[in-house]
């Protein structure tokens, strides 16, 4: 591979100009673009139909609780150019509704069902059981960062005595090595 | 009156012998398999523990009358086959009813147990059981063809269908069937591979594929009866083979040596084999074994 990132810049500029989107080249063969919620389908279709990004590699969600938003990421790959394109979009955390895109890639259905269950994002028209991995879950969706899993586990499951002195592994490690835990890690940490 | 007592005693003695020998053979097989796989393996009397333990287990549930009857069907079939085969040549206790049945009868009583078992397995409602049963029945159609060819060759050659007669003729002439018609013996040997269901023909139980096939829902005493009757059945089949092809046996030691050597053939063959698909396992019997059977029959006719 050449290091001048020609292909990367080409696809980035194309999307930038066509959709009026932000974006940058992360490194060789990795490109990310930030698009608006209602543009996602057009970007994905454009990339798939016009530029050969035919493979949906992954799709996931990040809970930006500080900004009150969920970030949805669609990682798509062009086998020809060997470039992974991250199409990222932000949706409102209080009203998490996203367009159902499993018509473009059918396998998106699985990821969307997972996101619906784990983050509580609604995909109108999504086909599939409401229950995906969990059974009989009636708390708030467990992967949201405001869900306190320690407290939940303490409340629901019997805790065998004897591990009260168990410490956060990260603390022990940092004490041993003298490193500092970065701020973003401690900010919404459990303690 | 004395006759009847002798008969009953002989029958019980035969069943016990068959049970002990069959179970021991099962244990020895496990030992042999273990040794080939470079393991120590269980004790050779391990299967006695298994049967004893299963008998002492509670059997709290069944799925209906047919499941309850299924082990009895197998047991009945195994014991009936045993009763109509002469265990020893000229034995006082071991001849049982062998004068009252013949080869065709044995051929037809043999599926009695598996079919009863199949009914029980069907009633449990476990899909694995039904799949196992269909495989077993299909495979039976496969191996019965060379088997029947070889038996017909035998009957034609000796002009009798009685097992006792066949043994007598072999003993009198001093030439075992295996030498006088080797092709028929080979066909029957191949059929035996299917009969004993060691790999590559273990499609019925099919470990790691079908749970344990028809026996999926049978536990405790049901399984104990099934294990012991299949041991009896194994022994009965081995004795039948020895009678037909190896000139029977004069005493128990000779019988044990002959049956054990014969039994190790499918076991050892299975050790180095993977598993066939069902249709492969059926058509396997319709190639060389079938050809050998036909040659054996023509040999016998000429």
């Amino acid at each position, binding site marked *: 591979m050449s290091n001048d990132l020609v292909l990367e810049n080409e696809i980035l500029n194309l999307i930038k100009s066509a959709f009026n989107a932000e974006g940058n080249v992360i490194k060789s063969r990795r490109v990310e673009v930030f698009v608006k919620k209602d543009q996602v389908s057009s970007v994905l279709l454009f990339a798939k139909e016009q530029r050969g990004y035919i493979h949906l590699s992954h799709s996931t969600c990040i809970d930006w609780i500080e900004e009150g938003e969920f970030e949805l990421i669609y990682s798509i790959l062009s086998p020809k150019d060997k470039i992974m394109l991250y199409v990222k979009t932000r949706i409102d955390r209080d009203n998490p509704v996203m367009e159902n895109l499993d018509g473009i890639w059918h396998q998106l259905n699985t990821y969307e069902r997972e996101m619906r269950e784990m983050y509580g994002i609604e995909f109108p028209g999504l086909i599939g059981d409401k229950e995906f991995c969990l059974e009989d879950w009636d708390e708030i969706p467990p992967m949201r960062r405001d869900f306190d899993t320690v407290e939940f586990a303490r409340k629901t499951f019997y805790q065998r005595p004897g591990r009260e002195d168990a410490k956060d592994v990260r603390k022990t490690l940092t004490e041993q090595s003298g490193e500092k835990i970065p701020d973003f890690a401690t900010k919404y940490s459990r303690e | 009156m004395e006759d009847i007592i002798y008969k009953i005693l002989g029958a019980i003695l035969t069943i016990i012998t068959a049970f002990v020998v069959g179970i021991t053979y099962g244990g020895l097989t496990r030992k042999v398999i273990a040794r080939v796989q470079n393991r120590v393996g269980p004790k050779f009397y391990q299967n006695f523990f298994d049967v004893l333990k299963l008998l002492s287990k509670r059997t709290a549930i069944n799925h209906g009358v047919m499941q309850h009857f299924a082990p009895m069907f197998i047991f009945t079939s195994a014991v009936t086959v045993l009763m109509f085969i002469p265990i020893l040549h000229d034995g006082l206790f071991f001849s049982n009813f062998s004068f009252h049945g013949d080869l065709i009868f044995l051929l037809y009583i043999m599926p009695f147990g598996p079919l009863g078992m199949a009914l029980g397995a069907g009633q449990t409602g476990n899909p694995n059981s039904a799949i196992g*049963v269909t495989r077993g029945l299909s495979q039976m159609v496969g191996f019965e063809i060379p088997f029947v060819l070889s038996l017909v060759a035998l009957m034609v050659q000796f002009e009798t269908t009685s097992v006792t007669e066949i043994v007598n003729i072999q003993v009198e002439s001093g030439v075992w069937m295996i030498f006088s018609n080797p092709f028929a013996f080979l066909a029957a040997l191949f059929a035996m591979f299917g009969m004993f269901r060691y790999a590559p023909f273990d499609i019925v139980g099919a470990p790691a594929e079908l749970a344990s096939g028809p026996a999926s829902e049978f536990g405790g*005493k049901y399984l104990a009866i099934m294990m012991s009757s299949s041991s009896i059945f194994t022994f009965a089949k081995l004795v039948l083979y020895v009678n037909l092809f190896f000139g029977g046996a004069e005493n128990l030691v000779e019988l044990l040596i002959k049956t054990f050597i014969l039994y190790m053939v499918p076991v050892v063959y299975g050790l180095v084999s993977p598993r066939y698909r069902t249709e492969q396992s*059926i058509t396997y019997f319709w190639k060389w074994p079938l050809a050998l059977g036909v040659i054996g029959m023509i040999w016998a006719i000429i």
Partner: protein
Amino acid sequence: MNTYFVVLLILFGGAIISFAINKVSYLLSGIVAFIATASATVFFYLNVDTDNFVQFSLAGFDFQWGLNSLSLLFTYIVLGLGTLATLYSIQYMRFKNNLGYFYFNFLLGIGSMMGILFSQDFISFFIFWEIMTWSSYLIVVYNGNKTHKIGIKYMIFSGIGAYAMLMSIVMIYADVKSFLIADYIDYISQVGLSGHYLQIILLIVGFGVKSALMPLHVWAPKAYANSPMGYTSLFSGALSKMGVYGLSIVLLSLLTNFNTGENVSLGGLFEGINAEFIRIIVQWLGAITAVMGTLYALKQNDAKKLLAYSSIAQLGYIITGLAIGTELAVMGALFLAVLHAIFKGALFMAMGAVERQAGTTDMTKISGLVRKMPFTFIVTLMSIIALAGIPPLGGFVGKWLLYEGMITSGHYFLVVLIFFSSTAAFLYCYRILFGIFLGQEEKETINVREAPISMLIPMLLLAILTMVFGTYPGLLFEPIANAMSYIGYNDVVWEMSTISNVWGDKVSLDYVSLTIFTVFIVAMIFLTIKNYKGTRYVTTKDISTSGEMPTENENLTFQLNFFQPFERAVAPLYKRSMDKIYNTIGESLDALFNFVRTIYTGNGQTYALYVIVFLVIMLIFKDSIFN
């Protein structure tokens, strides 16, 4: 009055009365039919006399009615099964329409079968044969429009059979100058077979159609499966046996009573044919019928169709046995003929009960009826064991005699073929038991109840008969031995419960039954008493499926493509089917006629062209043509 006339009068009169009385009450006509058959049966067996022949002339033809030992054997099948089938039909047909029509044809069928058995001359034989064919045709189309095509197919093949038979009868009359069957047999035994092969082949074709012999069987599966089950038990059990009856006359009386080794050259098409050759052909046809019937039976998803194919296969055994013609084989074949009537009658009745109670016999739609219909299950189980030929039930005796007959007479490869068929029969035997009665219980069949008692009684009686004949086949050997001595076998040896072959090997069925029942009961006592208290019944949903529990709507029963691996293994055998061949013939005829039609284009120019072409051809070839 004569017995024969009275019996036929009762049956045909009963037919008319039950047709008329249907207007009064729908139950009555069934009851009348039952009373008619039952009284005919009772009357017949009280006055049965095998040496009583009646002769009369009508329209210049001599008729002779009488009863011989062979036809007496077949009357057991017809009247016994007929009585039970009418009793069964009372409840089975209860909520259906056109009952008068049904019972009229039903009794007509029974009556005409009795007529066939009474007939000692070809003319009345043929007349009753046609009445039988038509009445059965009318019942085949009883179920409405969709059976129309099936009826046509049945009628076409019956027509072929009937005309073959008629042709043969005319030719026989031309030779013998008499219509009496006995005269023909005498004539043949004096003159020899040469010159009469065509008659015999045509007769075999005529009887072969009814007994579903290989190339002529294609009507049977659908016709059996689509008639009302009460009639099908008779159709498959008794009506097809008329073909067997005819074949046994042809094969045993005409083709064996003299030197079969003669090899008279007939010239032309029939060169090289002798009696032995015909019999070998029939043997192999029978065996192939058995194999193909079995292979197609195990493919079916509908229990009725499965049984229909199984009937074809079983008839194949019987015909093979008859064609082999040694004492044991014939004995086995006749034994199987009676047994087949019993167990197949019971099976079709049981399927009728299932159809009536559960609504369908499609095995992919129902399962797990064993707890709902236990008696039907027991009947099916016993009949299936008899069908499969497993000791200690009756079917085994017939199979054993057949095999021993074949082996001792040197038909080694036929044995293997028949054995293949009979082993493969285990597959469909299991299929039918599993598909309907075992497996997980369907939600739809939750309210199914056991069939009414008047349907169960005939079924159970037949099932018990299979058991009795399994231990004491001698009960049946007696009439069979009589029939065989009538045909010409001397000193037929039989014992009450021992069967033996010519090599002196024997099977003692009493010992067999004793052993099996003793061991079974001992094992049952051991297991049941040890287990009785602790054991409790759990539903078929409670199975080990990796911890998952099937819900009420899930049914895990394995039903579709049941024997797929086996079907794959024998796939080459499925490639050709007679049905396809007949279709091809039909289509090519169609195409031929279409082609012929294209000659007539309707255009004057073309016709002018034909004339010119014809003239040109004449001109060119005039020398060679008119020389």
